């Protein structure tokens, strides 16, 4: 096992932010994705989508300037940027489910090597659970990136051969960004694209249930400078 640390949540978010392209319309889900908007590369504009009816969501509102009629999907008062629009929740999900967003990033519990995705329910957990917008977003995503820890707090693998948790959507994930790696879902399975600084592919494999395909040199994750 490597003695190097795993990436922090912020570092995972910073790496994920490198996926953003100028002008993209992007939905960010709960968890690590929610941090990604703090790391938008300089010089580009990204239009964040919120499923409660915003395209062009800006940063959190400053203290004292909150408008509680302008909130994100986590109830946090936010701002909007020039070119933003408000619409109803059905139109918001027409965008997500209909494949209109350039990119969606969601937190995850399990991703399988066939792209199956589970992020809403841990079997046996107490409470009712809840789905929220995740199923519409995952199913309709043109490009879905899951940002999550590589393993659970208990050390169970989250990149798995087959999901054992209730699914969010079938065969929908394109890329997974974790605190140990960047992995693509390919027709052949998980392809290891990048590893955390100081880690080597074999070490990452030891933390992964599914087989990681390694082709040539696997570079280290470069973190966004900002």
């Amino acid at each position, binding site marked *: 096992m490597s003695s190097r640390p795993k990436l922090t949540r912020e570092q995972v978010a910073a790496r994920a932010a490198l996926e953003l392209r100028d002008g993209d319309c992007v939905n960010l889900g709960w968890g690590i994705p929610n941090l990604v908007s703090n790391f938008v590369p300089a010089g580009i504009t990204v239009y964040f989508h*919120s499923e409660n009816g915003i395209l062009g969501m800006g940063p959190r509102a400053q203290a004292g300037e909150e408008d509680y009629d302008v909130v994100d999907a986590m109830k946090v008062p936010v701002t909007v940027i020039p070119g933003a629009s408000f619409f109803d*929740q059905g139109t918001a999900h027409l965008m997500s489910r209909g494949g209109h967003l350039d990119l969606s990033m969601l937190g995850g519990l399990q991703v399988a090597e066939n792209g199956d995705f589970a992020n809403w329910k841990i079997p046996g957990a107490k409470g009712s659970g809840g*789905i929220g917008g995740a199923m*519409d977003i995952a199913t309709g995503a043109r490009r879905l990136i899951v940002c999550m820890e590589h393993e659970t707090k208990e050390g169970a693998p989250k990149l798995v051969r087959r999901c054992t948790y209730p699914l969010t*959507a079938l065969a929908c994930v394109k890329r997974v960004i974790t605190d140990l790696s960047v992995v693509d879902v390919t027709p052949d399975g998980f392809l290891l694209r990048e590893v955390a600084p100081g880690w080597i592919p074999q070490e990452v494999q030891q933390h992964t249930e599914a087989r990681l395909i390694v082709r040539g040199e696997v570079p280290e994750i470069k973190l966004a400078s900002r």
Partner: protein
Amino acid sequence: MKQKLCDTVDAAVADVPSGARIFFGGFGGAGFPNNLIQALDRQGASELTAITNNCGSGDGELGILFKHGRIRSVIASFPGPHARHFQDLYAAGKIALELVPQGILCERIRAAGAGIYGFYAAVGAGTPVADGREERVIGGRRTVFYEPLAAEFAFIKAWKADGLGNLIYRKTARNFNPLMAVAAKTTIVEVEEIVSVGSLDPEAVVTPFVFVHRIVQARGIHNVVKA
């Protein structure tokens, strides 16, 4: 002319019977018809079915109705971990719950108002949401059949209404409200302000008055204390 204006929120909800099926608008603290919800709690109808995105925060929003045992059945997307009263009842097996993906919830409500008798979507295929539902492969994609969701009442919140019931909403307080307005037999809206007929821009109206049956200007319980 139909008289839609109600003097009080209590008058607006007076005839809601026990056992009614009710849409409740609102999301993320914004656009909840909190004054109508409080009035319904005072009125005392029980055995209600609530169709809603979530189930309240503590005593807030729908929380009070769960606290007082008014609701026996829920169709929701994300009841929420902070919906304490709901979660207690759910854990005790005292409440029925159907979980619906959020966008599908929107579409099922819209369908009921639009004369659509059901639709297929890929959302939910291969998940527990599809349990007991018809599946069909369309265009190579596994899809699931969803039936419309109608209700006897919609409790919604808007920003302004004119005297006819044309509505505009404020920013993200729009959320589920316009969708629910089209699908209920009786749509009851609480608004911050009532304006004269003709003063809303015809192009800016979000909910045309044909969908609105009762209007009440509500003062008192806001979503949160605004800064």
